[in-house]
């Protein structure tokens, strides 16, 4: 490819000129600027062709249409028992849907805005459905899946590097930089959520 890819890119007018003079001693009667322009335009077109050919090769690595089509799932909340969580898979990642007990809710509500960034539990749930917490179940440190109902704060404990989350999924202790992420979701009915 090397020899051809370089038609335009390396085509410098001074090279052309010296070669022509070397071999035939003719300089041509053309205006030098115009000659430059033709070679530069052809070179630019070659570069353009290269870029155009490169783009599909890069873009093919972006998520394909069938992958994107799985970006939304619906979930029936009646499947979660009080005090338990259900882990569902969404976009290849675990999502925790946790039905918190009144005792857990009382504890986390009393704490106000904590974690990183400081958030109240109300910031992380939907009004009228405060008992349900929906968070992405990968530790914001390096992506391990935290263990349910363990750690110092009654939420989750990440076994990889020791991050402690509370029952609102907020980081309270350990190396994780952020609270567990809350995905975009909405209630399509009283007992059904659509995630994504």
């Amino acid at each position: 490819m090397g020899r051809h890819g370089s038609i335009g890119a390396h085509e410098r007018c001074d090279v052309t000129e010296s070669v022509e003079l070397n071999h035939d001693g003719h300089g041509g009667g053309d205006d030098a600027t115009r000659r430059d322009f033709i070679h530069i335009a052809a070179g630019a077109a070659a570069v353009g062709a290269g870029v155009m050919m490169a783009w599909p090769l890069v873009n093919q690595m972006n998520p394909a249409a069938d992958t994107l089509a799985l970006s939304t799932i619906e979930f029936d909340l009646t499947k979660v028992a009080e005090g338990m969580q259900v882990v569902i898979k969404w976009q290849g990642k675990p999502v925790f849907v946790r039905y918190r007990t009144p005792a857990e809710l009382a504890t986390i509500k009393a704490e106000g805005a904590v974690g990183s960034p400081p958030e109240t539990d109300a910031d992380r749930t939907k009004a009228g459905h405060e008992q349900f917490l929906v968070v992405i179940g990968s530790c914001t440190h390096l992506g391990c899946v935290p263990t349910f109902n363990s750690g110092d704060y009654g939420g989750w404990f990440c076994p990889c590097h020791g991050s402690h989350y509370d029952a609102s999924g907020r980081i309270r202790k350990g190396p994780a930089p952020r609270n567990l992420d809350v995905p975009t979701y909405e209630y399509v009915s009283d007992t059904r959520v659509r995630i994504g």
Partner: protein
Amino acid sequence: MSDHESTYVPKTGIEKWLDSRLPIIRFGADYMALPTPRNLNYWYTFGGILMLCLVIQIVTGIVLAMHYVPNTEMAFASVERIMRDVNGGWLIRYVHANGASMFFIAVYLHMLRGLYYGSYKAPREIIWILGCVIFFLMIATAFLGYVLPWGQMSFWGAEVITNLIGAVPVVGEPLLIWLRGGPAIDNATLNRFFSLHYLLPFVIFGVVVLHLWALHTSGQNNPAGVLIPKERTAKDTLPFHPYFTVKDGFAIILFLILFALFVFYMPNALGHADNYIPANPLVTPAHIVPEWYMLPFYAILRAIPDKFGGVLAMFGAIGVLFVIPWLDTSRVRSMRYRPTMKVFFVIFVIVGLGLGWCGAQLPDAQVVPGMPSFMLLDGQLNSYLWLTRLLTAYYFAFFLIIMPWVGLKETPLPVPASVSEPVLDGGIPEKKG
């Protein structure tokens, strides 16, 4: 050419530092300054075109391998998923599929050019042999690649072609099972074919490097077929860049236009509709045909009534190309100055196309519909079987009889003393532009 001295002078400190450690810039600069026969015509642009084809196939192939699944259950659907769901996947896959055909169009023209201008003759025998190796590897790669979409033609093509191995006496059967990884074409076969299809292009690339190395050692041939002595280098050659970069570049763009017409407007014209039917080991298509570029060899295979004989003839048709440098007895390289051989060459080209045509027909079908004929040995005379045999006979005769015989007997036209020195008769026309 071979004794071309480096004119590269490192300018900056970094260039000097690099030049004494890895003279890669010098290599590139020398390549660009390579003295090239000034009379090379457009038939000489196919080398560059082929290099582009190889790069296109490798790059698109690597990308397709990111999405393709080499499993009999999923291969067909994964190819269709590339065409439907992967971003721009339809383009990449059509470029790769049609790219194989474009590659063969270019390689056949490149080979015919070499044949016409005597590019295989001393001191260029190794260049030619390496080219034959590349051609053989290309056929292998294309065959392996055609199996991957796991359509009906993929499957049955693989079935028929691997069965050729079974024709080998004694070891044929165990060899066949070893090659397939089982008693039939199945998942094991698909997996190894995928692996080898990925590997071979890089082997081809390696042989291409040798091909170019040999080319730059013995120097390029030219349409006049005369050697360029050292003292005439300045007069008879031009530096590769910009003269031949721009000429090759222009030819490449015209080739890309043809390529684009196929990819965007008739992407499936060169393929077979049956390959969009998922492979079914229980149903054989009515008429199994290989891709168009294999048809001449497929025709030769079928021309021989004996199974092993057919296999030998088919491989012999490729094998004979390797010894052309020693079959041609002529003192003159270029057929431009060989009027008799030129006629045989034109017939050879027509015979090649004819063999391709025959390869796509049913052997028993009539060549001239309705014309009465008689049985000759095992078939009607007016059948593709006998036409194929006739053409096959010419194919081998061209190399084994005509080439040595005409070379000794014919009186060539006066050959110019050098590239830039026309002779009275048959010299190089001085042309502008």
